[in-house]
């Protein structure tokens, strides 16, 4: 079965979620990838949406935002934003799952300011819940397009903390746990070096070369000793994605892109 790069990215991301895990899910591709995991290998995963929703079944309809009405119907708990953040802060959320505008080699994410924040070149929307997911979940999944201007040696502004300047930075600044588990892109998967915490290429998508990854990465790429090729999506996974995003709004899968995407 044919698949788009976005579809492979979503499938690869979904496979990072284990069954029974509690996942706090950002808008856009994370919603889709989490729902895919639920529909395939992680039926008992629990989804937190920080407008106040906890679901253990994926929404039956396509979601443009986590607050869309179908996301609430059949939810397990609908409560305050603070209550979900409290459980996150307690350490009860296994996975934070967000998109990013810019990420650097230590997994720090910028969704706030390009340029100095006092002299801003491009104003991005800000944290939303992303900085909280990155600060407080056991591990963070980040999903974004692999472009040199997005994967930078050092981000201009840390909105959502990765490993800061590497090594034990998180512990030193007082963060209780966490850090990027996997950065999922349209070219491959990157995971932190256990010691330095620099992101390394750990899985490369089919028909992508290491050179191509390096060309699209804003720092000197390190490749894991155990580099693998990303397994392709199964027909079941593709069908599940397309049932949720029938017009290819997020994944360019089947239909045309109806609206301009960021």
């Amino acid at each position, binding site marked *: 079965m044919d698949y788009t790069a976005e579809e492979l990215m979503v499938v690869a991301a979904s496979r990072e979620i284990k069954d029974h895990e509690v996942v706090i899910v950002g*808008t856009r591709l994370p919603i889709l990838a989490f729902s895919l995991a639920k529909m395939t290998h992680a039926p008992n995963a629990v989804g937190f949406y*920080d*407008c*106040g*929703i906890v679901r253990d079944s994926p929404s039956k309809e396509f979601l*443009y*935002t*986590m*607050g*869309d*009405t179908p996301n*609430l*119907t059949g939810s397990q708990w*609908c*409560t*305050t*934003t*603070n209550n979900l*953040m409290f459980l*996150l*802060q307690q350490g009860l959320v296994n996975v934070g799952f967000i998109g990013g505008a810019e990420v650097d080699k230590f997994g720090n994410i910028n969704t*706030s*300011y390009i340029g100095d*924040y006092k002299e*801003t*070149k*491009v*104003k*991005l*929307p*800000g*944290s*939303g*819940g*992303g*900085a*909280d997911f990155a*600060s*407080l979940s056991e591990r963070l999944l980040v999903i974004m397009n692999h472009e040199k201007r997005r994967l930078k040696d050092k981000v201009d*502004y*840390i*909105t*959502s*903390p990765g490993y*800061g300047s590497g090594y034990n*930075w*998180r512990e030193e*600044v*007082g*963060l*209780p746990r966490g850090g990027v588990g996997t950065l999922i892109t349209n070219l491959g998967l990157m995971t932190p070096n256990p010691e330095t915490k620099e992101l390394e290429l750990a899985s490369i998508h089919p028909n992508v070369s290491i050179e191509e990854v390096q060309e699209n990465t804003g720092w000197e790429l390190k490749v894991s000793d155990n580099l693998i090729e990303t397994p392709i999506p199964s027909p079941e996974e593709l069908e599940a994605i397309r049932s949720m995003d029938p017009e290819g709004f997020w994944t360019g899968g089947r239909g045309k892109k*109806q*609206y*301009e*995407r*960021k």
Partner: protein
Amino acid sequence: MSTKLQTLSEAISEHVQDGDSVLMGACLEPIIPFAGAYEILRQEKKNLTLLAPISDILLDMMIGAGAVQKVVTAWTGNVSAGLGYNYRRAVEKGIPHKIEIEDHSNFTFGLSLLAGAMGVPFLPTKSLLGTDILKSNPKLQVGKSPIGEETLVYVPALNPNVAILGVQRADETGGAHLWGNIGVSQDAALASKKVILLADEIVSKRTIESDPNRVLAPNFKVTSVVHCPAFCHPSPMQGYYKRHHEFFHDYGKETKDETGFKNWLNKWVYSVGSHEEYVALIQEFEELKIKSEVHAEKVNYAHQ
């Protein structure tokens, strides 16, 4: 108990003053009180500080209209369509004028309201340690725990001058039922000095008192109650309206440049006399209405 019912125009005119801090959009993506924002713009309120964790395009349009001096938010843009172009123009180019930004995450925003609701100067959190949000918003201070060794962020209390909050139904004394996404609505209702409720339906006090656990806030915290069906358009409200996705996407396309935004503003706000006229302009309005009924299981509150 006397009635708090007012028209939208009366409520905004009487309770929102130039320079006020105004919270709108407490449920994050749904139940955003757009009707209140449009009325504020029609009444040409100025120098507002707008507060919301995420309020979708509401913040962007008010910034573009020049009503905003400062935003206190976690996210400002267009949730399903991307960036907020007015926000970018204001910050990057000072069009229509520069604005101040007080950066938060959704959690620190929620905590600041909770601290305001609790009546304490701050609440502690472990979120945001190591981030540059602590630099661009120096009100978020870092320190050692007064009772241990942990490093904590101290989030100062927020007590907005006014919260404009949406609910499915309210009575004229200020009792109200809100369901579906709650977000930070209750924290906002308890923390704010004045609360304007926009209600899709006005019901009897008896109806509200039939389910006191679902009530948003005690009546005395509510300043004004406005009967305003579809106040949330284009955002959704459980049981009442679906999200009007195209409206958000059209907004994104039509507001990329300043002229486009001015046209948008004229069409949807300044040339519209009232909320009722606005609703009449929405061609898809009937399709957006939620028509099916999926009721909550019965609950017996009997005492004997």
